[in-house]
């Protein structure tokens, strides 16, 4: 399906496979009316992806796959989220929304409220972790001993 994205700056049309069109029944916090997103996984963006709203071309997010990032990012989903996403036996795609800063090194990622997607059912939801140690804005590049980029290297 052809969709319009502004994830690369100016509005551009891209072809997205049906399997990458995800329904978010409740939208995400602050964007509750945005019920469908395209997952744009251009090879040149990896490990980042774009989440492009189909309701509004100007609503797009950079996200990063958290499941590959560190051995510690273990998401035990609440039964509520499992039920909504139909994830009884399937491993979900877990993304952290990235906030870009002035400079590349200022980027942060939301590890407290990851976006969880069931790829088979094409359902998504932003779930809020209730355990400790996660942040709405975790630095992506913090220091030599922490930060997700380094965690990826150790993982």
């Amino acid at each position, binding site marked *: 399906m052809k969709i319009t994205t502004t994830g690369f700056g100016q509005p551009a049309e891209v072809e997205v496979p049906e399997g990458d069109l995800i329904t978010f029944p409740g939208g995400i916090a602050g964007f509750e009316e945005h019920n469908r997103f395209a997952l744009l996984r251009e090879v040149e963006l990896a490990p980042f992806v774009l989440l492009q709203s189909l309701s509004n071309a*100007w609503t*797009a997010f*950079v996200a990063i796959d958290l499941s590959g990032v560190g051995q510690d990012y273990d998401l035990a989903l609440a039964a509520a989220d499992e039920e909504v996403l139909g994830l009884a036996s399937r491993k979900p795609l877990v993304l952290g929304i990235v906030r*870009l800063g002035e400079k590349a090194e200022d980027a942060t990622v939301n590890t407290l409220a990851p976006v969880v997607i069931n790829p088979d059912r094409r359902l998504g939801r932003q779930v809020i972790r209730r355990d400790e140690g996660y942040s709405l804005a975790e630095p992506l590049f913090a220091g030599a001993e922490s*930060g997700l*980029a380094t965690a990826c*290297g*150790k993982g």
Partner: protein
Amino acid sequence: MLVLARREGESIVIGEDVVVTVLGCEGGIVRLGISAPPSVAVLRQEIVQQVGQENRSACLSGRNVGGLAALRKGYRAKAATAPGRNEQR
């Protein structure tokens, strides 16, 4: 907004499945017990608002994503120099 007054130990039933019980009240802090099925998320309101705020800050809104190319470059550079890591293509 529906306003109800409850004493400690008393409860409110919401819909068919949600029960909120006042467990205690001390120093202006009310402890609430919530019984709800797993399909109903129960969250402090301020955390939902904070997540919404963070999402709005993160929304690209057509911002120049030359930043994204720099980000990806920087991320790969970091990952490549971390010990024991094989560069993945």
